[in-house]
C-alpha cells in the first residue's frame, strides 16, 4: 500500500508542489512585506530559490547514484528525474512572471537586461524551455541519442543561475551553499568518469 502511494507519479508531484502551495497562499492573500514589499516582490526570491534548488536536486541524482549504487532512494529519484526537472522549470516560469509583473514595463526590463545579474537569469530561463519541452517519453524516443546532448545544456543553465543569484543579491553565501555541493558531486562524477577504478571488462 505504502509502496503503491510512494511510487505513484502524483506522490512526486505533490512533494514537488509543496513550496508552491505556500507561495500560492501568499499570492492569494495579497500579503505585503515588513519593509513594504509588494506580494510579487515577496515571492520573487522564494520562487527563484525553489527553481534553483529543484534544478540542483535533479542534477545531483546521477553523481549520487555513482557514489551510492545500492541506495534505493536515489534509484527511485533517478526514475523521476524528468518530473523534478519540469518542476524546476515551472517554478522558473512563476519566477519570471513575477519579475515581469513587478517590473511592469518592457522598457524598464530592457534597460536592466544587460546587468550581469539579469541577463544570466534570462539565459537560464531560455535554456530551460527546450529542456522542459523534451522531458517526456515521446521526446526521449524521438530525439534518441541527441536527447542527452541537448539536456547537457542544464550545466550552462546551472552556471547562469549561479551567477544570476550571486549578482542579484550582491551576496555569495546562500547561492554557494546550494551550488558548492553540486560542484563537488560533479567533480566526483568527472573524476570517476576519467579514472574508473573498475578493471577493464575486455
Amino acid at each position: 500500500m505504502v509502496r503503491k502511494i510512494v511510487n505513484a507519479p502524483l506522490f512526486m508531484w505533490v512533494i514537488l508542489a509543496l513550496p508552491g502551495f505556500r507561495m500560492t497562499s501568499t499570492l492569494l492573500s495579497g500579503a505585503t512585506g515588513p519593509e513594504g514589499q509588494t506580494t510579487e516582490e515577496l515571492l520573487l526570491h522564494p520562487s527563484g530559490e525553489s527553481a534553483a534548488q529543484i534544478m540542483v536536486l535533479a542534477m545531483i541524482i546521477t553523481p549520487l547514484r555513482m557514489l551510492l549504487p545500492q541506495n534505493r532512494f536515489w534509484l527511485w529519484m533517478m526514475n523521476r528525474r524528468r518530473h523534478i526537472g519540469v518542476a524546476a522549470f515551472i517554478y522558473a516560469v512563476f519566477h519570471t512572471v513575477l519579475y515581469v509583473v513587478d517590473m511592469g514595463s518592457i522598457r524598464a526590463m530592457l534597460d536592466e537586461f544587460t546587468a550581469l545579474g539579469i541577463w544570466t537569469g534570462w539565459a537560464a530561463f531560455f535554456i530551460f524551455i527546450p529542456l522542459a519541452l523534451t522531458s517526456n517519453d515521446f521526446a526521449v524516443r524521438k530525439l534518441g541519442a541527441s536527447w542527452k546532448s541537448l539536456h547537457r545544456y542544464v550545466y550552462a543553465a546551472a552556471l547562469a543561475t549561479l551567477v544570476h543569484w550571486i549578482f542579484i543579491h550582491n551576496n555569495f553565501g546562500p547561492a554557494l551553499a546550494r551550488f558548492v555541493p553540486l560542484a563537488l558531486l560533479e567533480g566526483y562524477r568527472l573524476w570517476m568518469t576519467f579514472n574508473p577504478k573498475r578493471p577493464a571488462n575486455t
Partner: protein
Amino acid sequence: MVRLFIVAMVFFVSGVANASGLYECEEVDRSTWLTETQLTQQLKEKGWQEVRRMKPDGGCWEVYGTTPDGQRVEGYFDPVTGEQLILAQRGRILFRKEE
C-alpha cells in the same frame, strides 16, 4: 590539494558574505533624519517616477524606486540632506558619489 581548495573556498565565501550593504553613512542622531515622506517628496521633485519603499541601511536611507530615466534602482541617500550617494541597478553601479 582538495583541502587547500576547501579552505580557500570557506575564506572566499565568508569574506564576500560580509560585504552586503552598498554604502555606509556617518552615524547621526535619528531625530535629524528626513522622514520617509520628506525624502519621497524630495525625490519626486527631482523627477523620480516611483518611490516604492525605503529602509534604513548602513546609517543611510536605502530607497527602492524608479529614476527619472525609468531605471529600477536601489539607491542610498544621506539621511539628513537627502543627497544621492550611490545608485545601483540590480547590483550594477550607475552612480557613486566622489569621496
